[in-house]
């Protein structure tokens, strides 16, 4: 209970200072939409194609919505030493890092529903399984946030955080089955696809929108959850090891 006040205030400050700023909105929302437009044009499909593209767009929106700001909220604040204030506060490190990342998770979830809303205007999404969609979007947002967090706490410079997160998220667009099935990847790349958390999330999204998932729902969600926990623990470990010298 006594941690509610610090948790909430860290979250609100981050949202005000970082998430509601124009560069973030453009990177988080405009960029995935532009990419999707590109795929849409190239695939040459009509409106019936929207449902098969939607899982990829949603995943992309989450991926960019969550990871673009962590380099600033965490790495930049560490560099500017204001992060020390947080480390000095009587809040458990776990809770502190959750507070620092819940803005990203929230933004990722909101971002996910932008393309869904747009799609609802041009096609019929009534068949969508919302009960599966909501928890999956949340889990993908958490997994990609914690992946971004792990990168942000493993480097010292803001540009490194940005470079590394691009290094990770751009290949994921092609590797994780966002716009074409993993089975279509060269055989040697397929194990890599299954090593990335987003793959499992996208598989569930396919199931939720057009019923074409490969793995079973419980398996996908379980693997995604394990990724969340492991990435978060690794991030905490890195903060303890690298920042509390």
């Amino acid at each position: 209970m006594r941690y509610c006040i610090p948790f909430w205030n860290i979250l609100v400050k981050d949202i005000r200072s970082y998430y509601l700023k124009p560069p973030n909105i453009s990177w988080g929302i405009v960029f995935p939409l532009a990419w999707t437009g590109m795929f849409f044009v190239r695939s040459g499909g009509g409106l019936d194609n929207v449902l098969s593209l939607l899982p990829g767009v949603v995943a992309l929106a989450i991926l960019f919505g969550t990871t673009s700001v962590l380099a600033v909220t965490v790495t930049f604040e560490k560099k500017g030493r204001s992060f020390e204030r947080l480390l000095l506060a009587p809040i458990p490190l776990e809770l502190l890092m959750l507070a620092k990342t819940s803005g990203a998770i929230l933004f990722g979830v909101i971002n996910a529903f932008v393309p869904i809303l747009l799609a609802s205007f041009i096609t019929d999404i009534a068949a969508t399984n919302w009960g599966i969609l909501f928890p999956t979007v949340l889990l993908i947002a958490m997994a990609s946030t914690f992946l971004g967090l792990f990168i942000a706490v493993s480097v010292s410079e803001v540009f490194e955080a940005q470079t590394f997160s691009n290094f990770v998220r751009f290949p994921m667009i092609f590797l994780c089955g966002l716009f074409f099935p993993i089975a279509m990847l060269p055989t040697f790349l397929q194990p890599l696809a299954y090593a990335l958390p987003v793959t499992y999330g996208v598989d569930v999204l396919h199931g939720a929108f057009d019923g074409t998932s490969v793995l079973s729902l419980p398996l996908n969600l379980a693997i995604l959850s394990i990724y969340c926990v492991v990435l978060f623990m690794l991030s905490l470990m890195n903060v303890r090891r690298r920042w509390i010298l």
Partner: protein
Amino acid sequence: MLHNYVLHVYNDDVRSSTAFAHTEQTQVAIRVHDLVKRYDALTAVDRVSFEVSSGEVFGFLGPNGAGKTTTINILTGLARSDGGEVWIGGLNCTSNTKRAQHLLGVVPDESNLYPELSGFQNLCFCGALYGMRRVARETRARELLSDFDLAGAADRKFAAYSRGMKRRLTIAAGIMHHPPILFLDEPTTGIDVASARQVRQLISEMNQAGTTIFLTTHYIEEAERLCNRVAFIVDGRIVREDTVTQLMRQVEGLHIVEVSLNSGSSEVVGLVSREFPDLRVEKVSDAQLRLVSARPIRAGAVVVFLESAGLEVTEARQVRPSLEDVFVSVTGLAVQEMKRERERMSGGGVAG
């Protein structure tokens, strides 16, 4: 009693910190035993032990790189020790500083508030980190902004503050939550004389209100003025720790004359030392000397000697022995070394 206090922190009870001071008067606020911190081959803190009683101002004095900030970082939870034990407010914090962090206020050596937030927002945010409720933190923030002469700049972004204003706001942020123990890392370095005086005044007032203060500084006069007890730290080791009164006793009988010259000369120390072998001659700068002796100094003879050597004396005056002289005799470090550091750290004089 301590437990009562711990519970009260989250009730924003303004009087709880003073209650702590009154009821825990004889308690030890900080106890450190054989603290060690290594960075690769360098031992930054080398078996440091000391105690700070509740309600006192404890000074940690030493040159650059002595290990002052490192010690504070370990005590407050920003660094891990490689050995030794730490108790804060009666809690053993050796392996877990988080346990005591609610008792601590920390003012770091560099302002580290959020540049994009206003002064008021910064203070409110810092209060929230310690669980203060909205009304309590807004009231407290306004009160501190006016105490620290920043009410007019309350809504200006921190990034737009001057250095002295930043320093003052950083101190205010450190005491937002009424911490019973306050760490101040070089609070007056880098600010002008008037601001420095104001900050020292505030430190005294906080202490009178019951706050235990752990202070590091380069300015020995500042420590002499503010501290009950000091420890001299050099190369990670405490070379002497005592009350200021006790330390001053050591230099009570000393006679000191400061001589200022019109122009600098590098050989002047050697010249005077040879001519007056019973005097200890220290160089303050090229154009200023300090003569120290256990017996009264015949300043006239020194002036005549210097003039005959072709140097023009602009001033020769007797000064009272100070904690600085104790520092010099205990650490073997020349006054000039500390002075030089102080000059490098722009502007922040103690004059006044």
